[in-house]
């Protein structure tokens, strides 16, 4: 279980261009950080570097548990949810099939998926193919896996963009619950998060 995330003096390159350098951040259990910055500053790349996809040019990302540092690969494969611009849903499968797969693949159970379905009000959508869902409905479907399978660190990239005001508030409640349970949230945003969050600016 990840109890804190430490980003130390991180630099990331895209091609020949340095996106940002010297970025540092400490995130502890129960904390949320809103990552802000202009378009192209490297918010997505930072999230992908924390998830282990982008290799940093300098610096490092550490995950710590109750008993000291964790192996980064194990921490990522068992303790990190990444929700990017794309929802990772297959358009030809039904919403429920995709939800159940995403939940079980990330370590949750069928019961957890059913609870998340009720919680995010996905019941009426479950029998529909994903291609028939709107952008906001797809995002809610993708968010359901965060709720259903318990992983400590949520990396969110513009999580609220397609959601309407009521759903944003509802998702704020879910985030607050996650933090109260010892979770960590790092979210790249342009609009403020619906919960109390520290701000970290990238590429300032």
């Amino acid at each position: 279980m990840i109890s804190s995330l430490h980003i130390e003096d991180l630099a990331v390159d895209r091609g020949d261009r340095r996106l940002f350098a010297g970025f540092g951040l400490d995130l502890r259990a129960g904390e949320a950080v809103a990552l802000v910055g202009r378009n192209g500053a490297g918010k997505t790349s930072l999230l992908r570097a924390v998830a282990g996809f982008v290799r940093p040019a300098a610096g490092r990302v550490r995950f710590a548990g109750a008993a000291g540092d964790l192996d980064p690969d194990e921490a990522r494969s068992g303790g990190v949810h990444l929700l990017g611009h794309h929802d990772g849903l297959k358009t030809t499968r039904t919403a429920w099939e995709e939800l159940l797969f995403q939940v079980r693949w990330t370590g949750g159970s069928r019961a957890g998926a059913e609870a998340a379905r009720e919680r995010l009000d996905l019941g009426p959508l479950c029998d529909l193919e994903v291609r028939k869902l709107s952008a906001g409905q797809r995002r809610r479907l993708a968010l359901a896996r965060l709720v259903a399978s318990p992983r400590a660190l949520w990396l969110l990239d513009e999580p609220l963009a397609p959601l309407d005001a009521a759903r944003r508030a509802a998702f704020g409640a879910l985030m607050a619950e996650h933090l109260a349970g010892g979770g960590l949230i790092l979210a790249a945003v342009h609009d403020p998060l619906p919960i109390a969050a520290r701000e970290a600016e990238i590429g300032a």
Partner: protein
Amino acid sequence: MTGFLVLFRRELALAWGRGGGPLLALAFFACTATLLPLAVGSQPARLAAVATGSAWLALALASLLSLERLFAQDYEDGALDLLALGPAPLEAVAFAKCLAQWLAAGAPLAFAAPLAAIALGASTALAPLIFVAALAGGLGFSFTGGIGAALSLGGRRGGVLIAVIVLPLFAPPVIFGAGAVEAMAGGLDWRTGLMLLCAYSLAAVALGPFAMAAACRNALS
């Protein structure tokens, strides 16, 4: 292990739907068996001579057809991120995807291959060998083709790239497989060719996932 099974079930369902799944095999062989006599002439002797070879050609091309979407779809819709953060390493993910691809597309092609060859005039005595060789060859096609599919991720015109990458990798199984069937038809020793074919396919199964996982990591970064 449960994670792997969950993924495998999903991949099988996706592969079954992707590009028509098993129906594609039948349609492809129907096309080959119909067009070949029109292209090379309908004399039975001439058709019988190319019957087994054309079955292999159809097998290789049909495998190629469904490969393009193997990783590209997951890459484009963001599912590859999710797969990379799961309980199983990307090597296991690649293995599951290729195995599912083989079961959903390769195995039906293997069933259709002897039918097409016989329809074109091959001896019915060759049918069991054509089936076994197509089954083993399809396994090799799936796991070597997966390497091409993974390497072409993120590139424009990925389909063209896949064809160019996998063409040399597809050559050995075609040589060994078609060679074994030809040898049996000519009363020669066919076991060597079949064993070489199986060895090639098993080597692809053993090594391919590592190459695919490396290519996927590269595409994700």
